[in-house]
């Protein structure tokens, strides 16, 4: 008997024309590590929420959901971790936060103390206990959220895109914890995730969702080929993609290790033309910038020099807290540096800034009003831009009802009305599924071709390697290295693409596949 069984479940939100989940059936065995993926709006979150009684959305539900052969009840056998690390936090203090669930269950203080001691030890979180929650990084916050859920001793752990808001190092840390929980304690883990790169080798079973249905399911190696041949092929990670595009034979490589084995078995790669970038005149220059948020605190930007040339597509990489966001705000003239000068040949109007959280960009309650407001302020003709971005139909929507990708496009549309010459984008790839990411890349490419200079900060190394004309690394408040992606990634060990890792030290085939179309 399967551990979790979903039989012919359909679910329709109130006032929705079409069901969010359509006649869906699936089975999960005890102790499995299951990955659920699909583009945003495919019904992943809805499905996961249906599994937990306490947070089931309102609407019309039919079919049956069984856990161990019994229907769901309100009991805390299922732990749920959400996407946004910040919004799940209830208390201002880490210790209060992790015991929140236990207190709700009415556990005795003695039992609580022993559970907390154990869990804190497991997470190695002793130094964090007395910290304020808002001082923690997103990754640490997400770990605290997980710890709080685990203290309630669930049998099943459900995570809804827990790493979408995290940088690569933090997401790896979180995934490592999940692997341990699954391996060492046999906990059943159900994970919704966009970035399959890291989770595919771990998964026992993967489900691809499309329009409220499960379109493909099975062991990762068995079904990857099927996904590769479907319109959802951007979901396939780099290494298997390379394998498929080369018509590779044998076992599909999922990890770098397996990939290197396959590469060494002798494959021929075709030479590709490198992107040629004509570099224009310098259009934005920062010289000797110092910045900090408060007097007496440490400098966020420290003796930073930077120059951006016309027509460039610059990707700024670097860990959390290295100062990328702050630097973009300083460049955009929103924050004043304590020392140093921003040299811009252009007026402020020509610099467009897209914040990391585009929700805060919108001041009006519909997209249309926001666009209208922009026209009043800056002039411009909206129709072609909206047409081009494919968001003309969203004019009457509230910004918060849009998906992440749509919201971003709407904000970009507002920026483009001003006819900017420079676009500053703060982590535009954050939380986007591979298909939206590809759309974004196309938009940025087109703009770049029309002569807009682009500077974006990102954690997405593959994206930077594939699309940027120049990459820079930010470390401790300054840019420590920069170069064209081909050269930039070759020297790095961690901050490098999968392909680079695959070919490291294998001289014969190096340098050939950086721009391989995946």
């Amino acid at each position: 008997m399967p551990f979790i069984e979903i039989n012919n479940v359909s679910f329709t939100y109130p006032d929705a024309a079409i069901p969010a989940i359509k006649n869906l059936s699936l089975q999960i065995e005890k102790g499995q590590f299951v990955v659920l993926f699909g583009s945003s709006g495919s019904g992943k979150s809805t499905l996961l929420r249906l599994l937990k009684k306490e947070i089931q959305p309102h609407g019309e539900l039919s079919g049956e959901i069984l856990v161990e052969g019994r229907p769901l009840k309100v009991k805390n056998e299922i732990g749920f971790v959400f996407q946004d690390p910040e919004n799940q936090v209830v208390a201002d203090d880490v210790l209060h936060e992790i015991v929140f669930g236990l207190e709700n269950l009415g556990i005795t203080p003695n039992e609580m103390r022993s559970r907390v001691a154990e869990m804190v030890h497991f997470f190695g979180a002793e130094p964090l206990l007395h910290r304020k929650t808002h001082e923690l990084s997103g990754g640490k916050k997400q770990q605290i959220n997980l710890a709080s859920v685990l203290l309630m001793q669930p049998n099943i752990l459900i995570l809804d895109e827990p790493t979408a808001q995290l940088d690569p190092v933090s997401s790896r840390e979180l995934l490592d914890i999940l692997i341990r929980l699954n391996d060492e304690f046999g906990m059943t883990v159900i994970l919704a995730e966009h970035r399959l790169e890291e989770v595919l080798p771990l998964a026992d079973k993967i489900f691809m969702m499309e329009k409220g249905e499960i379109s493909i399911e099975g062991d990762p190696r068995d079904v990857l080929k099927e996904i590769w041949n479907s319109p959802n092929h951007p979901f396939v990670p780099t290494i298997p993609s390379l394998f498929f595009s080369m018509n590779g034979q044998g076992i599909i490589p999922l990890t770098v290790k397996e990939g290197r084995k396959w590469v060494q078995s002798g494959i021929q790669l075709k030479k590709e033309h490198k992107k040629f970038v004509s570099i224009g005149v310098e259009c934005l220059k920062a010289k000797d910038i110092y910045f900090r948020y408060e007097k007496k605190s440490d400098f966020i930007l420290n003796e930073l020099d930077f120059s951006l040339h016309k027509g460039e597509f610059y990707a700024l990489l670097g860990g959390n807290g290295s100062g990328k966001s702050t630097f973009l705000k300083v460049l955009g003239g929103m924050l004043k540096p304590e020392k140093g000068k921003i040299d811009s040949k252009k007026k402020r109007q020509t610099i467009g800034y897209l914040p990391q959280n585009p929700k805060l960009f919108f001041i009006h309650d519909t997209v249309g009003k926001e666009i209208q407001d922009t026209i009043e302020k800056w002039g411009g003709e909206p129709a072609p831009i909206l047409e081009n971005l494919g968001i003309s139909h969203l004019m009457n929507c509230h910004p918060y009802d849009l998906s992440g990708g749509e919201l971003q496009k709407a904000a970009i549309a507002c920026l483009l009305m001003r006819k900017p010459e420079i676009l500053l984008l703060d982590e535009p790839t954050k939380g986007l599924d591979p298909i939206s990411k590809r759309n974004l890349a196309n938009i940025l490419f087109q703009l770049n071709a029309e002569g807009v200079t682009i500077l974006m900060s990102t954690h997405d190394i593959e994206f930077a390697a594939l699309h940027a004309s120049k990459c820079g690394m930010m470390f401790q408040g300054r840019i420590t290295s920069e170069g064209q992606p081909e050269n930039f990634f070759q020297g790095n060990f961690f901050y490098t693409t999968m392909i680079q890792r695959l070919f490291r030290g294998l001289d014969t085939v190096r340098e050939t596949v950086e721009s391989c179309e995946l």
Partner: protein
Amino acid sequence: MMFGEQSMPNQFERFHPLVTFSFYAGALSLLILMLHPVFLGTAIVVILAINYRQDHLSGVRRWLIFMMTTGLLIVIFNPLFNERGRHVLFEMGQRRFTLEAVTYGGMNALSIIGVLALFISYNEIMTPNKLLFLFSKFMPQFAILLMLTLRFIPLMKRRLAEISVIQMSKGISVTHGKWKGRVKAAMQYIQILLTYSLEEAIQTADSMKARGYGSGIRTSYEYFRFKKMDGLALFYLVMLFLLILNGRFSGYGFLNVYPIMESCQLTKMDTFTLTLFLFFLSFPLLTEIGGVFRCRLSK
């Protein structure tokens, strides 16, 4: 001890929150009840000493102007509105200024200054955690509310800062331009702040529900243990407080102004009550001395 302060906590801070809270509650009521210049004067000295031990008076210095003006205003305004009393100091037009009114105002001013100084020390010692702990015992729902508020106020502040930076990049600013435009912009800021916060709070509510909030009777994690020392301290405070109250309601430690003003001279019983009163107020200092002694002895 689960919640150590960053610096080495002194003896008084290490007590169970119930003891600390009782001290402040007791001291507050005594400052209001014992309206006698000598009592209040010495009390202020003791409270300042407590503040000095805590943060070298940096808190008091910050509030000094406020404390002084409040005190001064009471001393000035009381005689202005209150003409009762037999000893007329001087007359101005139709108004009599009496010694009684000035004395009464002066004592109230001292009492207020004492209370403010006490609150400065209270703020330093009774961290939100301790308060939360106390409340979660008696009023669990209120404790949750307090906890959420504690997180939300700084959160909203950070969000507002973020909004203003982003909107500035769009040319909407509250610091530049015409006054009317600025007010409009500020209203819009608040509007996004509220919409956004409500939207995000839905997720917080989900996360609370997913962790079983509202599913039954809540218990609370014991951050602080009630030790034997805490029991002794509580006993000490309660006993003194009751004795002083007894004295106060037998008419000691209180300067009668109306109908007939007493002399400030202390009777024997007054002195006795004053001693008890000082023993109560200097509890934080005494524990300090006790701590030092124990340190010496153990060495």
